[in-house]
């Protein structure tokens, strides 16, 4: 093949890649099950490879690992879903109490501020704030379970996601191999190093995030139960999930626990206890779990991270927030590698 026609093929490949990105952007509404399946497939593919290295066919490894994984998930759900549902029911009942407490508290603050700054009375700011909180607790907050169910319908949980996981585990390696066979040999060494870097960044990130989320969630539940805070399971689950979001995530669980704790116990002692508990959780996470699971960090600055998070959230919603950082890291490693190559050539 002529050199110029090869270059043309490479340019066409880049254009196709950009077109795929654009297409994904327009189809972002249906991406959730694919993202989750890819997440899990990444998590378990090294184990499949391990079984394969004993000489068995790939499907044997996939069958063993998928069965173990699904039964572990099922066991986890069977243990934790009933108490979680009980807590959600309890929350629905006591939401109005929480609101009443909040409103009375705001009333006190309102009258104090109005004494201090009489002009503010004119604008009814406190009423507006109370109204917003009221509408949040009674409409938005109660819609959250419905929202989650709409994203993960029973069909997608029971059929689509497991099927996608299995297909991804079967097809992933094969399609990379096929792609490698098609790529121009001039670029093959560079492309292999890019594939490897992306793979290792994604793999480390996904495995690390899931293990960390799990750890933070479980430890939060334990600490909050010991302190006697209500809704320990709900807060723990949210804290674990939120922990996947860098910089901002760890505070979500803390704030939720603080709000519930202060309203429940009506003292500030509990706030101190909760802050200490979360400090311990973050200390354990940062010093023992993170170095163990992630190894090499993704090396992104905090401004870049926050920008990526917000941009991801703006474009793709919830999944954008979770995947913003690894995508950013992939762009960074690819860019650095290509720049290195360019500088060496010239």
């Amino acid at each position, binding site marked *: *093949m002529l050199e110029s026609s090869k270059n043309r093929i490479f340019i066409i490949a880049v254009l196709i890649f950009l077109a795929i990105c654009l297409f994904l952007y327009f189809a972002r509404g249906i991406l959730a099950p694919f993202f989750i399946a890819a997440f899990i497939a990444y998590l378990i593919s090294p184990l499949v*490879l391990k079984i*394969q*290295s*004993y*000489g*068995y*066919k*790939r499907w*044997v490894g996939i069958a063993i690992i998928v069965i173990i994984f699904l039964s572990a998930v099922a066991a986890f759900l069977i243990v934790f879903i009933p108490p979680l549902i009980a807590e959600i029911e309890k929350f629905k009942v006591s939401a109005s109490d929480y609101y009443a407490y909040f409103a009375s508290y705001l009333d006190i603050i309102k009258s104090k501020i109005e004494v201090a700054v009489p002009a503010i009375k004119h604008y009814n700011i406190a009423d507006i704030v109370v109204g917003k909180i009221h509408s949040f607790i009674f409409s938005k907050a109660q819609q959250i379970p419905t929202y989650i169910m709409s994203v993960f319908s029973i069909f997608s949980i029971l059929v689509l996601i497991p099927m996608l996981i299995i297909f991804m585990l079967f097809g992933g390696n094969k399609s*990379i*191999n096929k792609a*490698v*066979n098609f790529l121009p*040999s*001039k670029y*093959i*060494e*560079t492309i*292999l*190093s890019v594939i*490897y870097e992306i793979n*290792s960044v994604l793999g480390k990130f996904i495995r690390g995030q899931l293990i960390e989320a799990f750890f933070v969630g479980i430890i939060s539940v334990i600490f909050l139960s010991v302190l006697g805070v209500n809704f320990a399971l709900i807060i723990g689950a949210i804290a674990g999930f939120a922990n996947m979001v860098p910089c901002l995530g760890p505070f979500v669980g803390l704030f939720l626990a603080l709000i519930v704790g202060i309203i429940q116990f009506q003292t500030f002692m509990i706030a101190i206890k909760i802050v200490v508990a979360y400090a311990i959780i973050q200390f354990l996470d940062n010093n023992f779990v993170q170095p163990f699971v992630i190894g090499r960090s993704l090396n992104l600055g905090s401004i870049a991270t926050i920008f990526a998070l917000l941009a991801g959230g703006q474009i793709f919603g919830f999944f954008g927030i979770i995947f913003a950082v690894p995508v950013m890291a992939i762009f960074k490693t690819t860019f650095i590698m290509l720049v290195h*190559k360019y500088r*060496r050539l010239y």
Partner: protein
Amino acid sequence: MIKELLRNLFIDAVLKADIDFLRKIVLFKGLSERSLAKIALIVFKKTYLAGEKIYEPNQDANVVYIVKSGQVKLNSENINKIVDSGDFFGEISLIENHRHSCETIALKDSELYLIYRAKFEDIAESDNKAGLIIMKNLASIFTNRA
């Protein structure tokens, strides 16, 4: 009969063939079945047409090429060598920050097994014994050449 059937069902024949092929490569002499399997699982298989350039001198060396079938010609001022099936080239890639020294062209339609260095290093990290054996083989290849 049933045993044969079960064997076909569970045992990966392609992988087995790859392992048997890799066992004959000088670079992998003395490796256990398991280590060979790990290596067989990380190779990329790529076909080159006759006359196709595989790499050029001064290109960053990241990949070791093993010739599965076909024939490849290495060409530079001091090297002029033809590599046949069962042999390998580009082994300098196993050492970091080096470049390929010669031009390489496929003489016939060839199937090559590509091993990317970082993947190989991952294996060496978890399977130290295999890593040591391969490095010893590599050292003796370089010594014999000099």
